[in-house]
């Protein structure tokens, strides 16, 4: 493993933000808008409120157990057999999320910019680049994320700034859209949009000090959450509920919508460049984390050679769903609904068991 303890709070912060915040700019909003109409921007708030305590509890457990990452922690609390089983379930969750998400991203790229190219081609390029990036190791991923972060954020905020004029704030009313119950239940069901935060904990020991990781991860998750809310709010105020339901990729639609003065009217490719940076980085991080999980579960110390077979599997499995609609609205939605209760409850379960076994008293 190419890790010499150079990663600090900043890099962890950047990695987490890369992994989570881009949710603001993919097709997740349209998934929500189907159910909650113009109240959909409130769903992430509910989700975050539901899942963040579990995340904090998990971090707390990691802190108490010291020097263990997610999988090692689970194993040490639940014993070898059950621990391995749970770890494998988490790995499968992560793998499915990665697969479905990557298909989703590939479809976005295809639909918006390369409508005539075959999906498989774009898939190979996309995951290929992610693979070569991930091969460089977590440190380099950290450095690159930190260096790329300001540029990506500046581009996103430029977009917000350009679109400010087109926002109609009254469009958030009725504030709860299809109704409060819908938002609450959707928020809990889809709490797993923040599941990446849990996958990330496999890298708990990556930083120079564990405290740096904790700080970086917690701060970044809050900022990512705020960013997601801000973008969802923009989508609803720009598009209104009728059209936002029909828009698959609101981020790119906004990018196509805005113009920079009278001369530069089509600047979506500019934003697409930075969005691509973010997307590549997200999948580089994700792919690396998955290989790491696999390596930890099966005690493979040098897990980086696993990246190639895993990347290949991601492509093959990602191509399986018949079309992108099915991928997005059936598979991805179901996966989120299965993962949500799992990740909400798992930390509490671990905590109770650890408490019961008296392991927290040390």
């Amino acid at each position, binding site marked *: 493993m190419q890790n010499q303890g150079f990663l600090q709070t*900043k890099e962890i912060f950047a990695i987490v933000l890369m992994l989570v915040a881009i949710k603001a700019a993919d097709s997740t909003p349209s998934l929500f808008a189907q159910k909650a109409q113009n109240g959909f921007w409130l769903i992430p708030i509910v989700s975050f409120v539901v899942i963040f305590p579990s995340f904090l509890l998990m971090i707390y457990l990691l802190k108490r157990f010291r020097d263990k990452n997610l999988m090692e922690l689970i194993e040490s609390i639940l014993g070898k057999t059950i621990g391995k089983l749970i770890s494998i379930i988490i790995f499968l969750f992560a793998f499915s999320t990665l697969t479905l998400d990557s298909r989703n991203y590939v479809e976005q790229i295809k639909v918006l910019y390369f409508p005539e190219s075959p999906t498989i081609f774009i898939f190979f390029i996309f995951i290929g680049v992610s693979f070569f990036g991930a091969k460089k190791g977590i440190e380099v991923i950290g450095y690159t994320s930190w260096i790329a972060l300001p540029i990506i954020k500046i581009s996103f905020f430029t977009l917000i700034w350009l679109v400010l004029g087109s926002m109609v704030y009254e469009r958030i009313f009725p504030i709860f859209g299809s109704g409060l119950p819908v938002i609450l239940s959707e928020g809990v069901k889809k709490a797993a949009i923040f599941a990446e935060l849990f996958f990330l904990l496999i890298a708990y020991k990556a930083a120079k000090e564990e405290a740096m990781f904790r700080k970086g991860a917690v701060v970044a998750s809050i900022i990512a959450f705020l960013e997601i809310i801000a973008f969802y709010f923009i989508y609803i105020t720009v598009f209104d509920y009728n059209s936002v339901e029909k828009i698959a990729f609101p981020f790119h639609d906004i990018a196509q919508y805005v113009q920079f003065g009278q001369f530069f009217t089509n600047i979506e490719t500019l934003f697409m460049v930075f969005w691509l940076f973010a997307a590549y980085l997200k999948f580089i991080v994700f792919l690396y984390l998955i290989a790491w999980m696999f390596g930890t579960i099966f005690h493979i110390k040098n897990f980086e050679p696993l990246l190639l077979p895993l990347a290949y599997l991601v492509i093959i499995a990602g191509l399986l769903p018949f079309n992108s609609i099915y991928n997005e609205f059936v598979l991805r939605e179901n996966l989120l609904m299965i993962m949500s209760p799992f990740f909400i409850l798992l930390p509490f379960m671990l905590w109770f068991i650890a408490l019961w076994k008296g392991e927290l008293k040390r």
Partner: protein
Amino acid sequence: MRRSRMLKKESPNVSRHLNENVRTMKEQFSYGLNKDFSMRSLTIAFNQKQGRMFYYSSTVNGEQMNLHIIKPLLENEGKDITDIVSVNNIQALTDFETIKEYINSGKAVLFVDHDSQAYGMDIASFEHRNIFKAENENVIKGPQDAFTESLNANISLIRKQLHQSQLINEGIQVGERSKNEVNILYNKDLVNPDILENVRQRIKDINVDTVRNIELLEQYLEERPYSLIPTILYTEKPDKATSYLEDGFIILLMDTSAAALIVPVNFWCFFHTPEDRYLRFLYGNFSRAIRLLCFFLSSLISAIYVAVSNFHSEMIPPDLLLAITASRERVPFPLIFEVIIMEVAFELIREAGVRIPNPLGPTIGIVGALILGQAAVEANIISPIIVIIAAVSGLSSFALSEININFTIRISRFIFIFAAGFFGMLSLVGAFLLFVMYTASIKSFGVPYFSPMSPHFLSPNDTIFRKVIRREWLRPNYLKPKDLVKKRHR
């Protein structure tokens, strides 16, 4: 290693009999065949003994020899050879291996009858250029002198700027057949001992016949010879070298090169010129901003043009798009081919421009500008806009004057053009990201390439921009210097 041991075994010690020594010397240096290898016989005045002096007439200073060695030996009285001879460095030698080294490095060696040691006397004077203006690293404001092919002159240029007893100049022999000396300069109170030891060790580990100069040494020292990214900084300006010494870096010099090597380095070192610091805060940073822009333009503009006009033409404003299309109407080639023609043409001019003899210099300008610019457009081989693109990317590459990074960019430019031609922005962004990640993974003597930006280190934050000079009170901590804090100006 084995060879060096064999060489050592053959070398006997100095004998008490002069004739024996003379025979050995004649044999070793092929006296008679080797025209400039000279022997001078003399009778030493104070003890009336026979003496023989050996030297290369081409490498010693004849005047000095007459004045400080021969004349005193023939005339002066005294107790000992060392008292009589008035050269500033005289050394007693006992084995022929060292004697050989002495003579090869331009010194003279004196044998005396009935004396079991020889005397090595430093009157070496290798020919070298005078000190001229820097040819390749020009500055408008700042010292103009440049290193020359003489170690002593170079060190004197550095010591002139840095009046410190802590500045150490250490010599290490390198090469098995021709033993050349590499001089390591560093500040004893600042340098990180681990890095210094690493540098020393790497120089000692070089196991080749000869390392003639610093340019070759650079290639023996680096870790990744196939890498696109340079890990050693090369400079011909003593003031640049000195500014690095002040921060705890290590400088390598050799007698045969008009340049110094600086280790370890990071990405930013290749962007900076000494002038950034000589210019006032805003001016210096302005020129850095331009240089950063040049970096992106030079490496990416052709690629972006290919990507945008092939895959994302909706991005170009309609009027401009029409203009581009109209100018391309009569050009038969695909766009990427056009770009590559022009980039290759520019590289041709450039390579030819470096090699061309001086009197022919102006010709190339005419040929380049006329044939490759105007005529190619009129012949409908390329469109005018490509000329602009290639000119911008070529011109920008000159702003990055550091020769290593210059090549990095010129080569990576072609990679990016091909990437852009493959799948537009998708593959171009991917290629650029991988390029950045590859660069981030490089380490120069243990220092991560993008430090101190990421990974973060305490430092004067002299990365893309620099601070006001009086606010720079830290040394770069990625070197782990012994003393991090500079004296602060208040």
